[in-house]
């Protein structure tokens, strides 16, 4: 069985990196000139959103690979990434609501970015529900793969919503034409935070995929070659 109960070295590394970037983001980097300390929310809000995109991209690619190769290892990767992406999207929405309350004076607005992110959350919650409602392992994997491909259409819509429609949410500050419109010290902390979130994501993805492999191994209804 590929699962391990103990915390791996990689897990410790990821946790330590996250702890360091959290401390630096809270206490070391200077406050933003315009927003003050509340801008520190960016160091957790933005990496959560970017990693959620990455997670759903992993689900998309794994789903394509499953339909092509019909190997359950791709399905395991797809469900693992989708679940982590959903958790990160939830974190993005909640931290965004807190940031919105501090800067806009309200928790929620039917702004294009917020609305499309909420739709993204519901769509991937649906992905997990669809999986749970299907009993046959191979049918579940096949339908989930189709769902995982179609659902990914939402991700570019969420990302470009701030450019396509007017709203409260600010336009991109890092991934945009020309130089990033952010101070270099703050940008460095943002990228360091992104790196630590990526390590946690990889660790969680490996562990969650191993959990799914353990479930499949315990499932006697599966045939060989899975």
């Amino acid at each position, binding site marked *: 069985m590929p699962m391990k109960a103990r915390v791996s070295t990689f897990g410790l590394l990821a946790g330590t990196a996250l702890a360091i970037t959290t401390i630096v983001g809270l206490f070391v980097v200077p406050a933003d000139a315009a927003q*003050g*300390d509340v801008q520190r929310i960016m160091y957790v809000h933005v990496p959560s959103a970017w990693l959620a995109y990455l997670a759903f991209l992993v689900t998309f690619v794994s789903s394509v690979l499953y339909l092509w190769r019909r190997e359950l290892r791709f399905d395991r990767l797809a469900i693992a990434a989708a679940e982590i992406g959903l958790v990160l999207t939830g974190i993005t929405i909640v931290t965004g609501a807190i940031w919105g309350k501090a800067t806009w004076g309200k928790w929620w607005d039917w702004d294009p970015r917020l609305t499309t992110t909420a739709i993204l959350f519901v769509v991937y919650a649906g992905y997990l529900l669809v999986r749970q409602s299907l009993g046959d392992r191979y049918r579940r994997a096949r339908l989930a793969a189709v769902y995982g491909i179609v659902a990914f259409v939402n991700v570019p819509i969420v990302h470009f919503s701030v450019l396509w429609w007017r709203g409260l949410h600010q336009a991109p500050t890092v991934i945009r034409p020309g130089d990033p419109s952010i101070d270099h010290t703050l940008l460095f902390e943002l990228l360091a935070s992104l790196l630590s979130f990526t390590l946690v994501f990889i660790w969680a993805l490996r562990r969650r995929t*191993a959990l799914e492999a353990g479930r499949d191994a315990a499932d006697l209804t599966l045939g060989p070659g899975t």
Partner: protein
Amino acid sequence: MTELPFVAASYLIVIGGLAAYITSIARREAVVRRTAQAIGRERHHDPGVVSRDNAATDDDEAAEADR
């Protein structure tokens, strides 16, 4: 500093959310491990697996087929 509760709440939600999720993975891993162990025990005590002393010989099977 009026923004401090907002910043603190955000960081607590991120750390708490990730911790809760990783705990949920660990809990599910424990369930799978117990299930795998139970399956292993069942296989060990499977009545279909018999010792050589009790196993039917080729002669027994031939006699059964003749009957």
